[in-house]
Structure formats: structure tokens, C-alpha cells
């Protein structure tokens, strides 16, 4: 039945074009692999020094502290002192105190911002406000650190007795402000992804705006919001300059936010700026702490990704 056309059809493969197309594909793939190499390099750099570190300090001591000869249990972090201790918890403690404070600020404010932007503000206003808020994330952190130390701490000192010159509180508050856009932005995306139909359904039943926002949109976007919060924690945990400048450098096991604390990142920055010799145990401790920080943030990122992936599946 077929009856080929008079003019021949050039629908067959052409080698030159195929080669060009696949070369382009490989070149692009190569570029995409740079990021994989980056990860490998990070793990390699961190792991190699960390292994050296654990050649000198036991994993047990690093994670759980040690029991002294007199039977007393101790967990302190003091690699730079003559009496060296390598129990990482005080730095983790400092990190999380500041991070928790920051999240106490950033979570309600960031979520309220997201709700305002998605549910209340007109598209025009939210188009202006959203980038304005994102500017907060663009401010270099050294500026926040300076602001916390020279502006916030003196004000807080007037209100709160017993506030140390360097303290977790002021660093945490300012860091919270820095993290607002992270939480606001990711949750705004999550809330915008909630179909308009759900909102209309709720309005159709006689809900007020607030009820729609809190009873329908918020729960529907919950996993996206969780992802935002975890991402915020991960930012807070990894933040360096604010804590290095404003929170102090003394890792202690304390829950008092008025105290000086020493975070993991502050330790890294401090040693990096200091005089520790390459190859010394305090230098290697730098990488062990870096590795710990890497693993913590990695875990947080993976959790956040998993949660938001599930969320996306619900609405796509």
C-alpha cells in the first residue's frame, strides 16, 4: 500500500549531527560531575585529617568524654590547652543553643511572613516584599556579627542582668533574623503550592481567612514547612561569623543563653586564625570538628530533602 514519495525522504540518522549532539551531552555531563568531585574532595579532605586525629584521640573520648584517673567523668573541649580534652559535646551544645534560639525567633516570624505573603498580601505587594525580605539573607554574616556585638548586646545588657559580653542570646537573636528569609521563602513556596481549590473549598464552608490559613493551608503545606525549618536549623548550625564575633569562644556545657558559648564553627574559625601548627592535634581536631559539622548538616539536609520530596509528590 505504501508508495514512496518522488523526492527522497531524508529522515535517516546523520552521523555528524549525532556526534555533535552527543559531544555536547558529554560536555554538560562533565560539568555536572564537578559537584560530585567537590563532595568527594570534601569527604577526602575532612576524612584524611580526621583519621589522623583519631589516631591520637579515641573516638570514645571525642564522642562521650573520658573518665579521669580519680574516677571522675569529664567532658570538656580544650585542645588548645596544656590539659587537652577532646569531648566534642560542649561545642555541639554551643552550636545548638544558638541554633535553637535562632529558630525560636525565625520559625514563628518566618512562618508568619510566609502566611502574610501567600494569604494576605496582594500579589503586587508580595512581589515587592518577598525580595525585600530575601535581602536579609544577602547581608554578609560578618555584618550581622558586628551588629549583634555592638548594637544588640549592649541593648540586651541593659535589660538582662548577668548577660555576658559575648553571649548565645544576642548571637541567636540576630541569627534568627538572618534565617527568617530561609524559612519564609521555602514555606512560601510550600504554601503557594497548596492548590487554590483547597482554599476555596474551605472558604466555601464559611471559614475566615485565618482559619483557612491555619486550618487548611498550614497543615496541607506542613511537610514543606518542616523542610523549611530543618533547612533553617542547618543554616543556623553552620553559621560561623555571627557566633565567632558575638557568641564567644568558650565551649561549655550550659543551657543558659546569657552565657558565652563556643560553637563548632567558632572553633574552626578560631583555630584557623590562630597559631596552631599543621599536624598538631589541635589542628587535626579542626577537621574532626569539621567532619562532625558536615555530618550533622548533611543529615539535616537529607531529612529536609526527603520531607519536601514527599510534599511535592502530594501536589504534583
Amino acid at each position: 500500500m505504501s508508495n514512496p514519495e518522488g523526492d527522497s525522504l531524508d529522515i535517516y540518522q546523520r552521523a555528524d549531527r549525532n556526534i555533535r549532539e552527543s559531544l555536547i551531552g558529554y560536555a554538560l555531563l562533565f560539568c555536572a560531575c564537578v559537584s560530585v568531585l567537590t563532595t568527594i574532595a570534601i569527604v577526602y579532605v575532612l576524612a584524611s585529617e580526621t583519621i589522623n586525629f583519631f589516631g591520637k584521640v579515641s573516638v570514645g573520648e571525642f564522642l562521650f568524654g573520658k573518665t579521669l584517673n580519680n574516677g571522675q567523668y569529664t567532658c570538656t573541649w580544650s585542645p588548645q590547652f596544656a590539659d587537652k580534652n577532646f569531648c566534642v559535646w560542649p561545642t555541639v551544645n554551643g552550636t545548638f543553643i544558638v541554633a535553637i534560639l535562632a529558630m525560636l525567633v525565625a520559625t514563628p516570624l518566618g512562618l508568619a511572613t510566609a502566611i502574610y505573603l501567600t494569604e494576605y498580601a496582594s500579589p503586587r505587594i508580595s512581589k515587592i516584599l518577598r525580595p525585600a525580605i530575601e535581602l536579609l539573607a544577602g547581608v554578609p554574616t560578618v555584618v550581622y556579627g558586628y551588629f549583634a556585638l555592638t548594637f544588640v548586646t549592649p541593648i540586651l545588657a541593659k535589660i538582662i542582668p548577668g548577660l555576658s559580653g559575648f553571649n548565645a542570646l544576642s548571637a541567636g537573636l540576630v541569627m534568627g533574623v538572618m534565617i527568617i528569609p530561609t524559612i519564609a521563602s521555602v514555606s512560601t513556596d510550600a504554601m503557594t503550592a497548596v492548590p487554590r481549590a483547597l482554599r476555596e473549598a474551605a472558604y466555601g464552608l464559611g471559614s475566615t481567612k485565618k482559619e483557612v490559613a491555619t486550618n487548611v493551608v498550614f497543615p496541607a503545606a506542613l511537610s514543606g514547612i518542616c523542610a523549611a525549618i530543618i533547612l533553617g536549623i542547618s543554616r543556623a548550625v553552620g553559621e560561623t561569623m555571627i557566633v565567632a564575633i558575638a557568641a564567644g569562644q568558650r565551649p561549655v556545657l550550659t543551657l543558659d543563653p546569657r552565657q558565652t558559648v563556643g560553637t563548632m564553627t567558632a572553633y574552626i574559625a578560631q583555630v584557623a586564625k590562630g597559631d596552631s601548627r599543621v599536624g598538631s592535634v589541635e589542628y587535626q581536631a579542626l577537621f574532626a570538628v569539621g567532619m562532625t559539622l558536615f555530618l550533622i548538616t548533611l543529615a539535616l539536609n537529607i531529612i529536609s530533602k526527603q520531607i519536601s520530596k514527599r510534599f511535592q509528590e502530594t501536589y504534583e
Partner: protein
Amino acid sequence: SCGGGETPTTPTATGAATGAATPAATGAATPDAKPTAAPAASNLTGNVTIDGSSTVAPVSKAVAEDFAKANPGVKVPVGTSGTGGGFKKFCAGDTDISNASRPIKKAEAEDCKKNGVEFVELPIAIDGLTVVVNKENTWAKCLTVAELNTMWSPDSEGKITNWNQIRPDFPSEPLALFGAGADSGTFDYFTEAINKKSKVSRKDFQPSEDDNLTIKGVQGNKGGLGFFGVAYFEENAKTLTAVEIDGGKGCVAPTAENINNGTYAPLSRPLFIYVSKKSLARPEVKAFVDFYFKDIKVVKEVGYIPLPEAALPKILERVSAVKTGSTFMDAPAGVPIAELLAKDLK
């Protein structure tokens, strides 16, 4: 720093330099010549690499800054690997000049020897630490080394928390300690002087890499006590009180005079640069070292105490004659500089 290894001071041309080239290696320039006032561009080129003590680094950086104006072709990166780290590189032949906040150790000297690195040892300044308290602190005018030790000893951690535990007639006022960050040369030196061993200290003090923050801490705390370089105190003399130190020979104030004549003990020490003999043969290194001592008044600007007048000619002679070896190695503390310079090199 452990980080970069070298925190560089790399002076280069600003294009502002005018005038004829200065003959580089005369070593006989007028002592009053102001390098900043009359910059004269030389046509020297090359690098002078410096590493070592972070305590000494500010002096070398300042000299490098001035040197750069006259010698646009020469770069002088100044690293801060610490005295020990600096010697390690120096004795491996990697650097031209090593900054040191203590004399070279025997083991390090042997290291150098093994690698065929001969060096010229040049004291450049004296470092003194001031112990400061809050303006409202009217009781602690003078503290003994033993009392300081009580405050700072590791055993005091969590226990000595009030001034009245230091001396019974002190008022009951919470003790708030501020100090240099545990990763600084100043901290090592203070602990060595007060607690007899470097890095031995209580840990519940407020550490900071920035002296500035120590100053703020003591300013804001009635029971505060901190320490830092003498020169920084002078800038903040209005808002802080310096404590006299009793090292066994009565209360001594941290004045330039007391530091210079060795009576302000144990919180003062000499600072050095060590120059490789091989490097000194290079014109740019020679020019830099000569310049160092022409510019030596920067020491004061940077915060240290200048060497006694009498010592300078001896040091310049070491340079011009390329006298290698050390007289300070393993010297006990408290011996005046001039005396040590006079000793035989070994």
C-alpha cells in the same frame, strides 16, 4: 595561622613613589631618615618571605608596609604560623626570615644545621603584658605572681570565683577573667609566666582572639581582669587601670623603663627575627633587614617596647658582619638584652 600558613603582607607599588633609587645595601643611612616621608623607589625586585610568630608579625608587617613604599618591586609576605611552625619552615630553607617570640631551641637549631641553614639572630623589641582591671576596681593596685597564679591556675577552675578568695582584704566581688584566645602566642606566654607552663590554665575565663574584646569585657565588668600587650593599654589608659606586678622584688608598674631594664618580670620577653645567611646574600633581603632597623621605631607604634639604645649598634654589627649563631638559646629569663648580645655566638 594554621590556615593559610602565611597571612601575607605583600607590599607593592602604589605608583606614588618618586625620586631616585636608594642604594640598597649601605647600612649607613642616617638614623633619622623617615622612610614614609621621602619615599624613594628602588629598582630591587624579588620576594622576601617571612613566617613565624604571630606576636612578632605586626612588627614585620609594619616594616614591610613602609619598605614597600620605597621598594615597589619587592614583595614581603608575612605569614603567621607561630614561632615553632615558622622555625620548621625556616630550617627547611622555605623562608628567608623567621619571626620568633622566644629564642630558637636547641633542637630547632640542630634541625637548621642538618639542612645547612645558617642564621643571624636579631632581637627587635621587648614584649610586655599588662594586667588590667576595671576603673572602679580600687583594691587591686598590685598583684603578686602567686596571686595571679591563684586566679589562673587550672585548679582554680570553678572554685576561685570571687576577689576575696585572692586576698582576704579584697571585697566580695565576682571575679570575671578575660584573656587572649587559647590559640595565640600571648596566651602561651602569659600561662608560661604565671602558671609556669605554656597553655596550662583554667578554662572558665572569657577567651578572645581580639584584644579589643578583652578591653570591652573588663570595661564593662566591675570585677573584671584581663591581660594584653602594654601598648594596647596606653590607648585605653583612660578607661582601664593597669595593675602593678610583684614578681618577688616588689610592685613594678608596666612602664617602658621597667620593661627595658628587666625589672618588669616575668611578664616581659624579647622578640626576634632570624635571618637565613644564604638569603641575606640576596640584595632585596639585605635591603629589607637594613630597613628593619632603620624603621625600628614602628615597634612602639605596634605596641611593643623598643630595645635599649645601647643594644642597637651590636645588632647592626651582627647584620653587617653576618654573624651567625645564637646567644639567646636556652638563656634564663630576666637577663638584660645587652648582656646576652655580648655573649659568644654558638
